[in-house]
């Protein structure tokens, strides 16, 4: 035993058999390796860092580390007046700016208790649904990249370009819109808006089928995602999951229907749920499929909104905006269905200031990501990548 070095001792196991024979087994123990995945890693979707303890390719434990993109959103809100917060909400979920703006504006409007013109509501829903499609296109495209398929990503971005052009046309910006204002909109939509959105809808419908053939029904894609990252419905609810993640686990929950806001109650759409024949409920494939179905449902919503949107001559989208936004003392929580789940704003007003006393944002990605540790246990590294991709995080919203 003396000549055995210390390193060798660690990897040597001495087994004393019943008949007092000694069996020395060498080089048996494996060591865990700590693998720091991110913040500069191609598939952590931004600046997420995962500290993985790995046993070979198997992840024993993965701990997400956040905060690389923290910009003190909530503290800023206490220093900026109510309309000034809208651009900051854009920068939370930068892939779905319109949806986050809408959630924030709904919260403040609830606090102010003001009435919004119907035309404004329809325009809001149209841009929010357009943005939802754009956001899901990024989610699906980058998910393809995570699994090694590069082409679907560019197909998605090609289609997303049309949406960004539309949104740029109406708001002047491609990503950080500042379009939905408290009580109204920064501008009314341009004259040809309806026509061009309808053109986009007819253009995009066949593209969803193309995407389905190229990616969703691809044998290798299904092999890589089916049964991976399973999340039972009850655990998902306990984690506070929302959005496509929760629906992927088979929970029929959509805030647009379950806690309706804006004009959603008037619209006819289906809550996307995974098909148990095609995927296992709660796996990565189910979440992907939910996003794919949601894009088609969004198209339906947009079509209905285009039909019902009232045409008003000389419409002033700023007419309903209060001159001075100084809500009564009180607090409000309003939530909306974002592409990534429930985004809520909890706002406290002291009744004297034009700035909120407190503004707390409930981020969907942050909550969805909290299950990462549970999901990643015992997975292979490629599966870990598939799971991160299926959560569809936007670090701007996780860190705020």
């Amino acid at each position, binding site marked *: 035993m003396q000549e055995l070095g210390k390193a060798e001792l660690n990897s040597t196991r001495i087994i004393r058999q019943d008949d007092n024979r000694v069996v020395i087994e060498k080089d048996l123990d494996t060591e865990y390796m700590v693998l720091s995945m991110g913040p500069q890693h191609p598939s952590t979707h931004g600046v997420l860092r995962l500290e993985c303890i790995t046993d070979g390719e198997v992840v024993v434990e993965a701990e997400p580390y956040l905060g690389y993109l923290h910009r003190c959103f909530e503290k800023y809100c206490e220093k900026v007046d109510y309309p000034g917060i809208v651009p900051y909400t854009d920068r939370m979920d930068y892939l779905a700016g319109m949806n986050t703006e809408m959630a924030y504006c709904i919260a403040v409007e609830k606090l102010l208790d003001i009435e919004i013109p119907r035309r404004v509501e329809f325009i809001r829903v149209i841009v929010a649904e357009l943005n939802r499609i754009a956001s899901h296109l990024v989610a699906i495209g980058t998910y393809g990249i995570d699994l*090694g*398929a590069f082409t679907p990503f*560019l197909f998605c971005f090609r289609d997303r370009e049309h949406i960004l052009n539309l949104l740029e046309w109406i708001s002047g910006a491609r990503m950080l819109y500042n379009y939905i204002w408290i009580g109204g909109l920064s501008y009314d939509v341009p004259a040809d808006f309806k026509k061009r959105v309808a053109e986009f809808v007819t253009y995009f419908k066949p593209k969803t089928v193309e995407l389905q053939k190229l990616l969703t029904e691809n044998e*290798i*894609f299904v*092999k*890589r995602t089916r049964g991976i990252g399973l999340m039972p419905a009850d655990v998902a609810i306990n984690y506070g999951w929302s959005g496509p993640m929760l629906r992927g686990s088979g929970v029929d929950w959509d805030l647009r229907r379950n806690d309706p806001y804006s004009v959603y109650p008037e619209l006819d759409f289906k809550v996307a749920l995974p098909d148990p024949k095609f995927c296992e409920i709660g796996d990565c494939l189910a979440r992907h499929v939910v996003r794919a179905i949601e894009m088609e449902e969004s198209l339906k919503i947009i079509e209905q909104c285009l039909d019902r949107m009232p045409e008003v001559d000389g419409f002033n989208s700023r007419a309903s905006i209060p001159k001075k936004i100084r809500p009564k003392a009180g607090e409000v929580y309003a939530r909306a269905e974002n592409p990534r789940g429930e985004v809520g704003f909890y706002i406290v007003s002291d009744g004297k200031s034009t700035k909120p006393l407190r503004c707390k944002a409930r981020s969907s990605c942050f909550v969805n990501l909290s299950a990462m540790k549970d999901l990643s246990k015992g997975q292979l590294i*490629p599966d870990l990548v598939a799971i991160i991709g299926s959560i569809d995080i936007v670090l701007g919203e996780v860190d705020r």
Partner: protein
Amino acid sequence: MSHAPSLNTWSDALAGFNLGWFPLGLVIVAAIPLVFIALYALTYGVYGERKISAFMQDRLGPMEVGPWGLLQTLADILKLLQKEDIVPTAADKFLFVIGPLVMFVGSFLAFVVLPFGPAFIGADLNVGLFYAIGIVALEVVGILASGWGSNNKWALYGAVRSVAQIVSYEIPASIALLCGAMMAGTLSMQQFCVAQSGPFGLLHWYLFSNPVAWLPFLIYFISSLAETNRAPFDIPEAESELVAGFFTEYTGMKFAMFFLAEYGSMFMVSGIISIVFLGGWASPLPNIGSFALNTMTSGPVWGTFWIIMKSFFFIFVQMWLRWTLPRLRVDQLMYLCWKVLTPFAFVAFVLTAVWEIYK
């Protein structure tokens, strides 16, 4: 050497041409394949991949440097040459430097036995096919050396994956090629082409003349994708999982060497598959009565044209697959190798043997 004496008279005569003491002819004959491959791999392989992927993805690809971006790759090479050559302080310097060289050499040594037309071949070894299979395995050493020497966890993962993958896939690949060797009754690359050339053009190719050749052909094609680390088997360098796999830490020309080796191997396996199953430099056109198309389109120059066209076709298919398919997982890759391809390779082997006895 058992090649037909008439085959290489043209190049033999050229090889005997000396300029004073300098064996100019030999240099030309021996170097043309390698120079061509280097040029191809450096410029047009990369350019082709970028253009093909661009057209598949609704893009234009490189357009700025030269007409249709034709000089883009040259610009990239110039850029890579200027890059700082970084060796990480924690790296094993010897292994780190030797890795790309071994891989490059392993990939390019195989071209020695690849016939570029009836007249151009580095060395018509009588064990040419065996040599090609063997020398490509040298790449594994380079990959492992660079992955271990980088002292980077991602690189290590990539290296270990790659070794497991390449070593496993050599089994079905070799058995599939063995089927071809049984059909031709030789291991010499030139003899493969000779055996498959004839007046009826492509009907002499094993793929069309032999009904059991489809199975080894498909098995070899799939395995060759894995051997060259191409999608959907590009797990050693899976960029979304392992950053860049075994060449994560490499910069400048060392990185370019991995690139070159990859494109070299792509051309190599495409060459082998077209030689063993598609007649190599044999012309596909048949002689129809007095239209002696086959005779017209045979010969050293046409032969070079045909084998390059066939190889390009398979390179195109490789690129096509790469830009269409997602990537398999490590265990699925091994499953495919050991439980699907290897048993079927044995089946193909037995079928070929039966066919060769009773045809």
